[in-house]
């Protein structure tokens, strides 16, 4: 029996995860604690918080496992920059400063930071971490596992066969051929920030028609066996990772969109063209993933599929895989991106030390807890009004039904980029004006961004179909039935639904149950509690700061309703 800390970081989305005696005890993204969005630094705060939550001292750790091999990564960076002589002349100094200045010493830094013996700090492969993070917490004894992201050390895509406590790699595709980098390049072309704007591209795609599919098939060639190759002439990242795409892509698709220019899909022909390009990219990405998944099915014979890596956060593609790839079941863990690598690394470390495989993940609430007792003294100090609710779920349900926009903070915060009822903003799912107001005033984001519904799992069928392994963590989309959920129905008639059980999110479950008990649809609009460019709130000060800075009607923590205004 062992205590193993998994760590990801130094690129983006740093995180730590703690597995003790085969149980996932805590998993925390660094950004939640430092308030620095996509914080890439070594996750000092997250590591400390995981250990504190478990009541462990760092000295009690049997192993610390980093989520990728820094030396293999250095080799790839070196060989890639040299292989691209002389185009990479500007990248080389930066890349070497990055690698030699800190990244290559990361295992020593971890040992120093935590005060553990260096021989207890090890590393595993980037894609192996991803695969482990998905398969070992899935409900499947056997599954095909696909890991798809920008690039790990040198692998961009990998196919695995998971059985009980083992993962066998069946195939790999190497950098620079990468679906993640294709998506990232087009994200930059469309004027969004890479590693941040990919969700926006996915949301935008629903507004377009894929009329640029033929052009994009020149950019990526799909093979029958699931492999693919990018035509590197269209990309700039070999010379400089910050460039993403090259002039040839603009010659193919037209000029890039100016970043940060406000969107006008109704009035601007240019913006509609960009939406069409987003739709084409989505289609091509889905086709590539589908081919990969079909190969995975053939090669493994498994009837379940696990996905991980940044590309696995594409909920629209996941839905298509679930429908068309031939698998009976599909699972994506909530932090499928690089943060999730920390969880996979911890599990791999624990398994190597002989611990049992963790139980299937039934909740994303793996962060630090928040109670009314934590928040109320500060709320009073800030002059906020605190009202004790006799029946919080019923009162919250009634207020939401009256059109209020309320925060719900309950228990431990979520693992991954989605608010799943632990640090959520809730609103009525019916009124599209609520959606527009939330987008404009609270979230201050593009008008085309959709909001997601949360629905009682037992009652989801009439609106969204039956729950499956993807719906609890909001990693898929479903067609919406009925006209009464306008605020959470995207322009293509789908929604990125979350089905809620009492185990996964008890407080949100109680609110939905109260709505049902009152004869209303057990559905709410559920969006993350964060301002533009900020991580989702975590602790009391973040929550109350959000309430003070944004025009929502209040926040419920346990039985306390906290509102602005006079005491």
């Amino acid at each position, binding site marked *: 029996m062992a205590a193993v800390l998994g760590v990801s970081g130094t690129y983006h989305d740093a995180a730590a995860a703690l597995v003790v005696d085969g149980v996932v005890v805590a998993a925390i993204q660094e950004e939640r604690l430092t308030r620095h969005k996509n914080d890439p630094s070594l996750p000092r705060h997250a590591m400390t918080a995981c250990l504190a939550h478990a009541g462990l001292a760092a000295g009690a750790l049997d192993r610390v496992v980093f989520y990728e091999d820094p030396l293999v990564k250095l080799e790839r960076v070196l*060989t890639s920059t040299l292989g691209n*002589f002389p185009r*990479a002349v500007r990248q080389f100094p*930066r890349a070497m400063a990055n690698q030699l200045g800190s990244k290559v010493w990361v295992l020593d830094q971890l040992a120093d930071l935590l005060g553990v013996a260096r021989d207890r700090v090890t590393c595993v492969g980037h894609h192996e971490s991803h695969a482990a993070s998905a398969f070992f917490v899935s409900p499947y004894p056997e599954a095909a596992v696909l890991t798809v992201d920008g690039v790990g050390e040198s692998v961009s895509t990998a196919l695995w066969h998971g059985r009980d406590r083992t993962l066998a790699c069946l195939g790999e595709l190497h950098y620079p051929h990468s679906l993640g980098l294709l998506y990232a390049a087009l994200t930059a072309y469309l004027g969004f920030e890479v590693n941040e704007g990919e969700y926006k591209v996915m949301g935008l795609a629903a507004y377009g028609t894929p009329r640029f599919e033929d052009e994009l098939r020149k950019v990526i060639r799909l093979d029958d066996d699931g492999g693919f190759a990018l035509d590197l002439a269209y990309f700039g990242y070999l010379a400089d990772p910050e460039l993403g795409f090259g002039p040839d892509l603009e010659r193919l698709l037209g000029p890039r969109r100016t970043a940060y220019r406000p969107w006008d899909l109704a009035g601007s022909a240019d913006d509609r063209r960009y939406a069409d390009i987003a739709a084409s990219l989505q289609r091509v990405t889905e086709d590539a993933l589908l081919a990969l998944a079909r190969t995975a099915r053939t090669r493994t014979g498994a009837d379940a599929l696990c996905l991980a890596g940044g590309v696995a956060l594409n909920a629209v593609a996941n839905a298509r895989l679930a429908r068309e790839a031939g698998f009976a079941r599909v699972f994506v863990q909530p932090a499928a991106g690089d943060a999730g690598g920390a969880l996979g690394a911890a599990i791999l470390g624990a398994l190597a030390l002989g611990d049992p495989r963790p139980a299937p993940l039934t909740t994303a609430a793996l962060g630090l807890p928040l109670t009314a007792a934590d928040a109320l003294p500060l709320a009073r*100090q800030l002059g906020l009004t605190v009202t004790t609710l006799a029946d919080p779920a019923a009162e919250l349900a009634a207020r939401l039904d009256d059109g209020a926009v309320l925060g719900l903070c309950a228990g431990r915060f979520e693992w991954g980029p989605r608010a799943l009822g632990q640090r959520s903003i809730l609103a009525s799912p019916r009124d599209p004006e609520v959606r527009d107001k939330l987008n404009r005033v609270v979230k201050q984001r593009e008008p085309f961004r959709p909001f997601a519904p949360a629905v009682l799992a037992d009652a989801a069928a009439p609106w969204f179909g039956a729950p499956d392994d993807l719906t609890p963590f909001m990693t898929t989309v479903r067609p919406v039935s009925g006209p009464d959920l306008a605020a959470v129905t995207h322009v293509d008639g789908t929604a990125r639904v979350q089905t809620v059980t009492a185990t996964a999110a008890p407080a949100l479950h109680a609110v939905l149950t109260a709505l049902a008990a009152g004869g209303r649809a057990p559905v709410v609009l559920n969006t993350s509690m964060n301002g533009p*460019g900020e991580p989702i709130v975590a602790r009391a000060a973040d929550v109350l700061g959000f309430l003070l800075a944004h025009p929502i009607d209040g926040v419920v923590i346990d039985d306390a309703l906290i509102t602005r205004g006079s005491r």
Partner: protein
Amino acid sequence: MIDALRGVVVRATSPLVWRWPGHAPRKLEAFARAEEGSRLDLMAAAHATPSLARRARYLRHALDETRHAAMFTRRARELRASAGLAPCGPPRADTEELFARLGELGFLAFVHLGEQRGRKQFEVYAAHFARRGDARTQAMFDGILVDEREHEGYTHALLVELAGADGARQALRRARWWSAWRGWRRAGRAITHALYAVLMMALYLIMAPLAWLPLKLRGRAARKRWLLAPPRS
């Protein structure tokens, strides 16, 4: 002494600085980044301080910094639009972990000096825009100045409350030294980076022949297909 010198420089250069084409929005964006960095440090302080009253104070201050960053960004976007420049993105900054590094007293002293410096600088800029008849930018600086004065005042009051008048003076002196040392180190880092970039470029050129060798890397670059393990029997 340094502050006085800085004031003279700011007053002397501001007419040039703000009239330089395209420079005004960039300067406002730099202010937005500074406010964003300050927000991160203040949020860290709000989480770390043992005092409930100071936690509330730091939190309010952090919210002011967020608002200021938004104001600077908004005005920078307006100026960019009027100059026909591409819009800017949201401010991004790193935390310096000042609270953890300096302790609460040192943190307060550092923030106090920063607010004082900002207040003096913004007063010069507000007067400059008043003279130029740019009421919109002047109003923005005036609005932010109200908060800067308040921040300057409360941080000093807290310093005195925590350390007494003498202790506060000592903390401010230490913070000035630390600030100067930080500036020195930053300058050193910038020079080192430049030197390093030149050396690495030279190294890149020296290593260039390797690019033509039949290295593993060239094989790897050519791997366009799956590297598949044998099928299951």
